[in-house]
């Protein structure tokens, strides 16, 4: 498709003045999005936080003097100092190293769970919304059943069935988030299906599959993107919750939720063992929420020209 468009764009615009048409400022809708993104404070702050955490997660561990699982029996529960910035835990492990390494786990869980639920949810929502009838009834009822359970409870049940591990926690989080995206997509499809351009596509003689993937999907992705960013935050919390309950990451993995639960008993004697992983969770969630809120304001279809 893109190559096709370039073949059309080859001639330079003729010098003839355009008469009676709106000014062609932006080359594409994406240009508009970028401009309003820069203007939105919360989106920019959120993006900065998210990108920083991402950067720390990717390259941070390379610069650490300690491994996240490096036990030092002589320096247990030490307060933060120049040597151990965030102090040490009950096994003498450097909390800073563990928090930094934990970012990798949390982002990976969030990314996997959200991507997985977006793919599965959108596909199901697309089918339910476009074909309607019994397909819609079937898929929508499955969503209703999933939504009838409190999310974390369902995740616990799934992990209990599959066995506790980080991987299974990711699957569980992905599953419980599927209906969110499924319903969102379904509602978008129901609305877009009624648009004239979809009818026009049908009138042209286009096949269903092409209508779905070339016309409906590209016009539905914005709320999915926003919801995905917001759900990233939820997924991070859910992963931490499962870790805290011992159903997610297993020791000695430096998962933030797990670190919180391990340090419960030292809350008075060595609060840094809780404060730093807790703050890390909070900052990550805040970053994704700000970014998501900002994106929602920018991409709100009602604000589009």
């Amino acid at each position, binding site marked *: 498709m893109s190559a*096709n468009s370039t073949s059309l*764009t080859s001639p330079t615009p003729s010098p003839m003045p355009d008469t009676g048409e*709106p000014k062609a400022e932006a080359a594409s809708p994406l240009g508009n999005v970028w401009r309003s993104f820069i203007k939105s404070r919360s989106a920019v702050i959120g993006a900065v936080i998210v990108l920083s955490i991402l950067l720390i997660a990717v390259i941070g561990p390379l610069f650490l003097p300690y491994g996240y699982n490096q036990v030092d029996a002589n320096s247990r529960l030490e307060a933060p100092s120049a040597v151990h910035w965030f102090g040490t835990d009950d096994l003498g492990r450097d909390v800073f190293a563990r928090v930094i390494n934990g970012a990798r786990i949390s982002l990976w869980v969030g990314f996997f769970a959200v991507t997985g639920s977006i793919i599965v949810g959108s596909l199901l929502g697309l089918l339910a919304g476009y074909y309607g009838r019994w397909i819609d009834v079937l898929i929508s009822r499955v969503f209703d059943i999933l939504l009838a359970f409190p999310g974390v409870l369902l995740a616990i049940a799934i992990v209990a069935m599959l066995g506790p591990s980080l991987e299974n926690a990711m699957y569980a989080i992905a599953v419980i988030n599927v209906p969110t995206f499924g319903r969102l997509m379904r509602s978008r499809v129901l609305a877009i299906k009624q*648009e*004239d351009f979809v009818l*026009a596509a049908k*009138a042209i*003689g286009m096949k269903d599959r092409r209508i779905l993937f070339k016309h409906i999907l590209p016009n539905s992705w914005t709320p999915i993107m926003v919801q995905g960013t917001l759900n990233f935050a939820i997924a991070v919390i859910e992963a931490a919750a499962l870790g805290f309950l011992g159903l997610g990451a297993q020791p000695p993995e430096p998962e933030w939720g797990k670190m919180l639960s391990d340090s419960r008993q030292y809350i008075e004697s060595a609060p840094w063992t809780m404060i730093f992983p807790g703050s890390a969770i909070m900052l990550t969630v805040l970053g994704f929420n700000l970014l998501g809120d900002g994106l929602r304001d920018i991409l709100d279809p009602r604000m589009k020209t």
Partner: protein
Amino acid sequence: MTAPEKLLEVNHLKKYYPIRGGVFGRKVGEVKAVDDVSFTVRKGETLGIVGESGCGKSTTGRSILRLEEPTSGSITFEGEDLTSLSGEKMRRMRREIQMVFQDPFASLNPRKTAGLAIAEPLEVHGLGDRRERGEKVKELLSVVGLDPYHGERYPHQFSGGQRQRIGIARALAVQPKLIIADEPVSALDVSIQSQVLNLMEDLQEKYDLTYVFIAHDLSVVRHISDRVGVMYLGGMVELADRDELYDHPLHPYTQALLSAVPTPDPEAKRERIILSGDVPSPADPPSGCTFHTRCPHVMDICREIRPSFKNYGGNHFAACHLLEK
């Protein structure tokens, strides 16, 4: 108009929408959007269909392309019954029949450039390779009075008239025989309307097109049509050659409609026929003649028996008991 060749024949077309209610979504009624409509379209002509909003003219247009699945009736295009075609055959048949929509902005995908929108029908029907399609798009753009560089712009960067030109170019791309234009100019400014109408007339001549032109504006329809059909509440009440219909309307509804057309001459004396009441709901249409609730000449028979659609000479069809006397 000697021995005109029939291109499209619509017979007893009905489209009912179910009304569902109750806990289990049972069918509790029907909206009779199109109720027994028949007409033919001759090759090369423009058939205008007029009527108020909600009278079923758009549904009729969409049913021809089977964008709405007709409830019953037949639609014969070049001797082939479209209602019996399988999905895939119908899809290929859409190459022959194209559609121009009322709202040119809504009918263009906001995320596709004009060029891509026009190339799409070609792509869908596997016509030409990428380079040939590019050439064709440029040609089509100039045919509808746009410049080739407009092809790389997005719909929101055009004016209403230009967008409708793109819609027309898209419909023309696969060289259809029949174009169904569903209120193609009613969303446009009056000054732009005439440009688009003239363009459509030029194209008709150039490409030997046949139009079904759906509109509510009587003067627009008069301008472009060869024959005109008048619809009321899902039914066709009158169908005749343009001048015959405008000069000698037979049906009381047509007479009332025509009397409401504003004339530029303030001195002209005309008798306005003012219809009282509203259009009845198509979910619960009146018995007999659907127009009897508002007709100034209503008789007892009108309330009971539905008048048949008959030829009253010179291919002037109407459905009214008054004429049968």
